[in-house]
């Protein structure tokens, strides 16, 4: 059966000192064998939602003011957008905010990805990176900050490191409801479609972890930010233990405790932050 998907929207993106306002409208047609995507101003949509308010410029200015030499912003992309979707007879609208920041200090790079403009984790990462000392071996127990745990979860799908659940949401990439369920094995029930130009793929969405306990040992060193993209269960992390700040590489083999938060992060098909003891 041929599936027709339409999307249109605006995005304002702040990148490399530029402000880019982009408006697009496109259509994707998939008959199971051939996927086609092309710009198409759809007559089916009504008036287009207005451009986002433009808070991104303030976010960029704040981050730039926080990063002082010898730290340097290596990459900073802030965007906010609004999109209208139509798949078959299902229609829905979403608003998005994204922050991607990479800050360099000597041979280290802190990376933070956010789906909102709350910069508390960015401020903390910048402060700690400026005080970082030499690499240390992995501590026996580590507390992962919510943004770090969220980055890890997509890599743990299909492993027995922690029990993973898909959280409910109104729509997936085909407009279907996202059902809350425990994730065990593929095929995944829902579809991920980051753009109308991307062929949708089955993927677990809005991940959250469920551990045997929510008793977090607060005396354990805390990992506050990624220093490299997650590779399987291995993470290079910026850690803090009392007044000591150090990089360390951790292979997460078991999650001992997890305390969920409601903050959503744009890793994979989305994941919720959790304070996590590993």
């Amino acid at each position, binding site marked *: 059966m041929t599936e027709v998907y339409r999307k249109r929207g605006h995005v304002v*993106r702040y*990148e*490399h*000192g*530029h*402000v*880019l*306002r*982009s*408006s*697009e*409208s*496109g259509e994707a047609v998939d008959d199971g*064998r*051939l*996927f*086609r*995507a*092309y*710009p198409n101003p759809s007559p089916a949509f009504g008036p287009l939602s207005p451009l986002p308010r433009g808070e991104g410029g303030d976010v960029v200015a704040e981050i730039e003011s926080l990063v002082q030499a010898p730290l340097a912003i*290596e*990459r900073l992309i802030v965007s906010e957008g609004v999109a209208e979707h139509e798949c078959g007879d299902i229609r829905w609208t979403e608003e998005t905010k994204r922050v991607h920041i990479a800050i*360099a200090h*000597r*041979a*280290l*790079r802190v990376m933070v990805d956010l789906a909102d403009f709350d910069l508390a984790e960015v401020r903390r990462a910048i402060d700690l990176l400026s005080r970082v000392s030499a690499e240390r071996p992995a501590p026996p127990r580590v507390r992962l900050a919510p943004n770090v745990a969220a980055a890890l979860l997509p890599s743990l799908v299909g492993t027995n490191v922690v029990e993973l659940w898909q959280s409910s949401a109104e729509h997936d990439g085909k407009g279907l409801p996202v059902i809350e369920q425990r994730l065990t094995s593929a095929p995944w029930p829902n579809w991920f479609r980051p753009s109308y*130009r991307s*062929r949708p793929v089955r993927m677990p969405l809005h991940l959250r972890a469920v551990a045997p306990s929510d008793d977090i040992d607060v005396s354990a060193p805390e990992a506050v930010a990624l220093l490299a993209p997650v590779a399987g269960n291995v993470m290079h992390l910026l850690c803090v233990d009392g007044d000591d700040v150090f990089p360390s590489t951790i292979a997460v083999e078991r999650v001992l405790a997890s305390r969920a938060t409601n903050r959503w992060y744009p890793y994979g098909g989305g994941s919720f932050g959790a304070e996590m003891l590993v």
Partner: protein
Amino acid sequence: MEYLFSIAARDELWSGGVLIESRASHGQARCRGNEIDAADVADSVLIERAESRMSVMRAIARDMSDARVRLVASARRVNDFERDEASMSVTTIGGVSVVISPGDSLPLRLRSGQAPAGEGLPILWRNGSAAVLLHEAAGHAAEHNHKTEWPSWLTIRDEPDFAVDDASNETRATDLTQEPPACMRRESFRDVPIPRMSTLVARQYDAPWSLPDERIEVHLLAGGAYEPLTGMVTLSIAVADRIHKDDVTPLGPFQIRVSRERIARAIVGASGEPLRYPGVVCVREGQEVVVGSLAPLMLTTELV
């Protein structure tokens, strides 16, 4: 400065001679200083030009029953200056990838061997493949103003083959051992233009040349990367042979990971005119651009 950038593009994926994905894209970006207003406005002239570049490539893709082929053609206009681009990325069943332009023939060797590369052998970079080595170690390093001392007989330049870049500037050649590339490029109307390499050309002038009997010969690479914080270069070698006098042993894929300074010190000889490597799809800041790559036969000491 104010200018209008317009583009039309077609991107297709073929598998086993059958079209499985096709994407059309077009739009324009009105640029004023650091403000860009972009919209998917159609330009029928550019659309026709991009589509016309596809027909030759489609005929080739249709005949490649044992590979995945990605075809990309675009036509762009910056104010009044127009230019086209087209490339084919071929990935064989064995996983070896190569980027070629329409009209190019495929490299003769598209299959890896199985033997381990071993260690300690000098490397002969055939087929212009030294351009990929220098793309990472010199070109990307230059983008970060990282300087390295290269052999005095070697020049490494970015030489754009078009007159106006994607930000409406006149292009110029740059010495990548001294300065970053000057050419601003963007993948689409919805991208910010950033300085990128366009065509890397390495040349040798009276370089030393003595070919050892025992060596590795590199023919094709699967990819490469430069880490600006550490200066480390990673190269994935896809097709290579180990040579011992007249014996040729095809090698399995292997990786080289060394600093750019070590690469500069390891270059000990070169011969002949620059050879055009099939092509490099360079991804930076999420934007894919094709970078032309030419280098002479080049000899390095061991890097594995």
